[in-house]
């Protein structure tokens, strides 16, 4: 059976595809930042238990308080890019979703459990004592499991050749384990996430926690160590991932496509820069280099998807029926929403220190 014959017909777009691509590429890295911060916070909070000093313990508590916020924002900031992926690639995504329906639905109870456990860990931190270590470890593992399920869906949706398995296994129990890129891709995502998460811990410690000098210093140090070592490891994992890609996709980054090759070069340069900044424990410099690096990586990820889909689907060919007013309505809402959020956050400086 020709896998291309299984690809559903894409629905008409409500605006030029470029708008959705722009919004996808704008919001997906925001989700990544929140997700990275969430994973890095959970990991650092866990690692603190392995070091018995007081400032580590306090840091762990501070991170426990931050964790539920980060879960909330990771979920929220994940909604927007998922919506725009639905618009551009929904017909592919829904197909692979059906194939792995059981696992896809499992994301919800896993997330609810992790989220409540994060609150439990926060509210009961003192009572939990050392067993808090296991609570936050479970939170971390559950959240990383969600990442694994997403990696499966995101790789399966771009490989229609794997879809024919549905005819023999239609119960939603398929994963994309036979895909040679899956594990490398997942580890690439997780290594990068935990590294950037380490950087977040360093930033958070140097700013929000700066009133407690010992905790701030511990957080900054641990965060930067994580960031640096994991970024160094990422050089290996990233290369492994690049080598597992199908040749025609890999060659896009090796000169066949100028833009993609430029992206890879920019990514390598930025990664080297972050490594140097990391070794020198320069939080601000590392941050300024990491933000564009995450955007570059997101664009490369998009290129990989396009490379895979070239024989099957071209998003620029999807018909559109443009209506401007809903698009304007959204942008006006977005601007107003940001204004209101900024105003609310600005009120925080007036809060009384003790309740």
């Amino acid at each position, binding site marked *: 059976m020709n896998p291309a*014959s299984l690809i559903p017909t894409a629905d008409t777009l409500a605006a030029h595809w470029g708008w*959705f691509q722009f919004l996808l590429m704008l919001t997906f890295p925001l989700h990544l930042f929140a997700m990275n911060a969430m994973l890095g916070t959970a990991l650092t909070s866990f690692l603190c238990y392995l070091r018995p000093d007081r400032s580590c313990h306090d840091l762990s508590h501070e991170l426990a308080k931050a964790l539920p916020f980060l879960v909330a924002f990771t979920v*929220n900031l994940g909604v927007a890019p998922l919506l725009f992926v639905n618009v551009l690639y929904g017909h592919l995504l829904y*197909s692979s979703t059906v194939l792995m329906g059981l696992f896809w639905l499992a994301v919800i109870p896993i997330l609810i459990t992790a989220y409540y456990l994060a609150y439990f860990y926060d509210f009961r931190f003192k009572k939990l004592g050392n067993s808090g270590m296991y609570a936050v470890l479970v939170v971390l593992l559950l959240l990383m499991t969600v990442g694994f399920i997403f990696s499966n869906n995101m790789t399966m949706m771009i490989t229609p050749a794997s879809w024919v398995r549905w005819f023999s296994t239609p119960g939603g129990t398929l994963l994309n384990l036979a895909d040679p890129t899956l594990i490398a891709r997942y580890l690439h995502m997780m290594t990068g996430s935990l590294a950037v998460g380490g950087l977040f811990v360093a930033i958070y410690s140097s700013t929000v926690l700066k009133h407690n000098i010992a905790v701030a210093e511990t957080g900054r140090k641990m965060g930067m160590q994580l960031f640096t070592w994991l970024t160094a490891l990422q050089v290996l994992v990233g290369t492994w991932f690049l080598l597992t890609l199908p040749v025609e996709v890999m060659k896009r980054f090796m000169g066949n496509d100028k833009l993609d090759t430029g992206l890879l070069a920019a990514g390598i340069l930025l990664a080297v820069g972050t490594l140097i900044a990391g070794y020198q424990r320069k939080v601000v410099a590392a941050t300024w280099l990491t933000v564009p690096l995450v955007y570059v990586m997101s664009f490369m990820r998009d290129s990989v998807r396009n490379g895979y889909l070239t024989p099957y689907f071209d998003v620029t060919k999807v018909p559109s029926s443009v209506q401007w*007013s809903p698009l304007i309505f959204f942008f006006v809402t977005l601007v107003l929403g940001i204004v209101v959020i900024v105003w*609310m956050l600005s009120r925080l400086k007036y809060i009384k220190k003790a309740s």
Partner: protein
Amino acid sequence: MNYPIWYVPTFGGGLLIALVAIVHVFVSHFAVGGGLYLVMAERKALHEQNSSILDFVKKHTKFFLLLTMVFGGLTGVAIWFVISLIHPAATSLLIHTFVFGWAAEWVFFLVEIVALFIYFYTFGRMDDRTHQTIGWIYFGAAWMSLFLINGIIDFMLTPGSWLTNHDFWSGFFNPTFWPSLFFRSFMSFMLAGCYGFLTATFLDDEQARHKMIRYSGRWALVSLVLSVPAGWWYISALPDKARSLVGGASPTIARAATVAAFSLAALAAVVITMILLNPKKARTRVLTVIVMIAAMGYMGAFEWTREAARRPYVINEVMYSNGILQKDVERINQEGFLKNAKWVQNKEVTQVNQLEAGRELFLHQCFACHTVGGFNNDIVVRTKNMSYGAMQKYLATIHEKRYFMPPFVGNEAEMKALAAYLTAGLNKKPLTDDAATAGDRGKKLFEDNCAACHGVEVLKPEVADWSKEKIRTALDKLPTLNPAMPDYNAPAADKDAIAGYLHSLNNPGTAKEPGATLFEDNCAPCHGFDVLRPKVSSWSKTKIRTALDKLSALNPAMPDYTGSATEKDALADYMVKQAGGEK
């Protein structure tokens, strides 16, 4: 047909959607109404300078945060996950139509999160006026989420002028948008009041407890009373077909309406009792639990009714529950379903693959609502009374006879394949066309089409040694028997019926009683005689015959029988016999 199907035979997708949706509906409406309740209760506490009430509001906020932010937020994502899994085609259509509505809703979701975090974590640490403003921002954002999702949900029931102009705003501000918005707003306030009731009973300060019980009671009662005219407005804005389903033509809605009526009565009664009587008694938690259950029953029944009212569509008059677009039906009927479907292995029906093709047709056209051997709308149970022949006839007019079922979409061979799968495949029934042995219809068709040239008595000895199959095959190629004979271009079911009649001329035992065939064709799809027998066993033949003239008077869900008086007589005869003889 455009997408694969998540096939778990015993657990249909509809039930999963219902479970997740009902849970989310409660929490999300509570999130809206609770937002208003929190700021109003805080204002009351500040106005009265009552620290007990203020503490109560703070505790309420913590629970509210944990329930709405975590559970509410994630069950909202869950609905999206589930519908894209069960109704991918409909989800895609909705997302492509309303993407910017959804995107705006995401912004309000973000504002909600930030506002609720600040509201909770700064309780007592911020000046009162700013804290109240943050509370109002939370409520405003939560209500705007309701506003936006309400437009999209109601579009599914009443697309209105979007059907012709495909304009975003026409679809969004559709005919049921405003009544539904009012109804849902009152519902959300009612839920918050009921929840306030429950938690207020835990207040230790007696005076504060009494105050909050009365306060919450008034909330619940006023919202409840206002929700009734809003609900009425909603129903009157429905298109005729949906309104007739809501009026009782759908058995599912009839049950939901009963639940709603009882819940409403119980809710009103307990709430009024608790406000009017000494609030001390209201500390009895049983009463407050009854209030919560009744409120949920009322709301759940409404949601159930709304879902059922758009059947057989998932998006009214646009897409059927099985993902087939209404505009494509005619074309697919011409070209064939399997040829147009993407996720099938059998692209056309042959004698060899009939059952397997039937299974694929079932998967893509019926499984959206029917389980196989499961506990929800089990297709095996629903079809157990039907023969292969009766099933074909039923499928041919399924949508006309029972509006809430989508029409069968495909060509004749595909319809037969589906009938074969449902009867022979699932119920192990013989693949013989019972209609073929129906002396009555076959005779009538013979008289209409053959008797002009062939007298029965002449033909009878000629086919004496012929099997029914041989006669049936001959009817497909009459000119080969005799070049002077024209082809008989009629539906296969008609040929089956004539073959049955001709065969019965020499094999009288095979002819079926006319009433039996009529019963199988027209009644058995919904009523097995074992279920009907106790009901009609005490009825006289006249009563049965009279009832057959006006079936919809017995039950609005039942279509009137459109057959002739002779057929009704035959049916009545058969039913009397089956029920144990004339009374």
